[in-house]
């Protein structure tokens, strides 16, 4: 029984990691930015949902999508104003990296000023309600999170594989110059990518925070987990992010149940280092592919 319980807990956490990592891997693969402020979009997403619920009195599910849209817009504006301008050919590859690093601190401080340091509760109708199936105990929020995460992963894959926009995004990811010569509006594609990436971070926040508490510092964990998954799955690889997320969730669950809780976070990073040593292209990436 413990085995099945551990597997289900691992999958639940893994699916949240997938959502976190998809946004991060997308902005890297297409936007060419390792977004160190990703965790802050996750945190701001949860605060946006909190405001929508507490002040507009709208239901949780509406707040979830509202947060995705609000943060997506903030993401696009941030990208346009601060990241794209430093991504010119002649500027250093470090410039966008440093900008997102600065944004991480700035967003955190702004949230601290706006919301204060005390923890908030993000109410959800599913949070902390048990759901039992065949002796396995999960919360309804867990189930809802898995469902939403599957939904967004599926939609993203459909978008990338089945639409012209997706084709353009993949073209930009493969070769920006060639895509530009084909008449693709690179800036517009990057903006769409940023909206998707940050919006998904916000969704992850709104899904995960109801089982914890919300304060301006919650983004740190989200960034670290997201980065670990992205490296496991291969930078810019969407399927890799899905597999990597599930792998990390399961590894943490099994490690902390059968080895020791004290190593829970270490297990993820150990996996990351092993992958970097032996398969730097990610667990399912091909050797020839250039990040």
């Amino acid at each position, binding site marked *: *029984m*413990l085995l099945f*319980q*551990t597997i289900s*807990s691992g999958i*639940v*956490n893994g699916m949240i990691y997938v959502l976190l990592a998809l946004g991060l891997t997308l902005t890297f693969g297409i936007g060419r930015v390792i977004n160190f402020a990703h965790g802050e979009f996750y945190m701001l997403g949860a605060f946006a949902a909190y405001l929508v619920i507490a002040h507009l009195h709208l239901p949780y599910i509406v707040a979830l999508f509202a947060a995705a849209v609000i943060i997506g817009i903030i993401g696009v504006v941030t990208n346009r104003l601060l990241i794209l301008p430093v991504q010119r050919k002649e500027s250093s590859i470090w410039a966008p990296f440093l900008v997102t690093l600065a944004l991480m601190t700035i967003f955190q401080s702004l949230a601290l000023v706006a919301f*204060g*340091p*005390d*923890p908030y*509760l993000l109410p959800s109708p599913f*949070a*902390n*309600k*048990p759901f*039992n199936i065949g002796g396995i*105990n*999960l*919360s309804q929020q867990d189930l809802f999170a898995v469902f939403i995460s599957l939904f967004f992963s599926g939609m993203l894959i459909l978008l990338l594989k089945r639409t012209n926009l997706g084709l353009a995004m993949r073209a930009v990811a493969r070769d920006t110059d060639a895509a530009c010569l084909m008449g693709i509006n690179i800036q517009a594609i990057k903006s769409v990518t940023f909206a998707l990436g940050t919006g998904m971070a916000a969704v992850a926040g709104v899904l*995960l925070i109801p*089982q*914890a*508490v919300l304060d301006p510092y*919650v983004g*740190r*964990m989200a960034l670290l987990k997201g980065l670990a998954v992205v490296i496991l799955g291969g930078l810019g690889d969407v399927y890799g992010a899905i597999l990597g997320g599930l792998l990390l969730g399961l590894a*943490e*669950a099994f490690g*902390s*149940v059968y080895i*020791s*809780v*004290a190593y*829970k*976070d270490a297990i993820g990073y150990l996996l990351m280092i092993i992958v970097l040593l032996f398969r730097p292209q990610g667990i399912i990436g091909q050797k020839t592919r250039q990040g």
Partner: protein
Amino acid sequence: MRSMFSRLFILGLVLAFAFGTVGCGGGGEKKADTIKIGVIAPLSGNQASIGKGVVDGMQSAAKIINGSGGLGGKQIELIVLDDRNLPDEAVSAAKKLISGEKVSIILGSIGSSSTAAIQQLTMKQKVVLVTPVSMLPKLSQNNDQYFFRVTATAPIREQSFSEFVSKKLNAKTIAFLASNEDLGRATVAAATNLYEKSGNPKPVYTGFYDPGATDFSAELNRIKSLSPDVLYIVANSVQASMIVKQVKVLQLKSVLIGSGEAATQEFLRLSQGAGEGMYIPVDWAVSFDDPASKKFLEAFQKDYNKLPETKFAVQGWETMWIVAEAIKRVEGPLTSDKLRDQMRKTDWLGPRGKWAFDANGDPVLKTYISQVKGNDFIIAK
């Protein structure tokens, strides 16, 4: 954009100037007739509710003392700094107080790790350090002649708590889920030691989680598979609230007991009823009606128009009084050595009982067991 920035800049300048001048003028004048007391406590971060409670209690006491003429004609001036429950912030606050404000006494901090960090400094600089809350036993075992604590140590607390767990709860097995910090480890070590000696209840699981953890499903799944009679949650209010909610979801049937840090209104607010029935050791509760407790409650309600939200307010109140009584007894100019000698002679009756310190600076204190019932902690006895 530009005009907003320049306006902000000017506003900043004006504020800096205003505070700067007030600071200088006030400081210069006051120097002669105030006694500066440094206070370090977390006013933000995950222990903020305890920090605020303690500081509120101190300020209430200082107000009464100052209102009745101060200490030998001098007013008490509390200089309160926030350490966010981070040891490095606590150290920089202590440096500011010792070299900047030239205090001879610091009251603080809350988190044991922060207090331990401050102590490294106060011990060297011979500054009296009085912690209102920190329970880490190590603090009073450093041969620091200038250290006092206005709370029981973790092992002493565990002594009475363990009797309750084995006799009243009749527990045969116990699991520990504790924060991987100094106090978490010390508490579990003390409790495990006691239970192993008595053989009842038997410790079956010990898990130390990361102080920033928010998901405890792996730990709780493991605990559920062992189905212990009692689950001991050694955690601050925020993490304890997340743990009890996840315990509910997993439908873990063990009796919940918690460490003293969770005896706060914040825990009740964040746990949303999931902590109902949990036992937590405390040394004071709002329901106490002895004269000293009544005096405290009256003063506190007058100042803040509400009942204290945590029992930690009384710890701040008592700390302030004990220190004030010691300062009152000091003859001539106040020095750390004279203050330390007078602290050793403490003999004062507070809400939590008679106060006196042993050679290590530890008091003797009675522990009560409280139980979470609705929106309150009720003394279970």
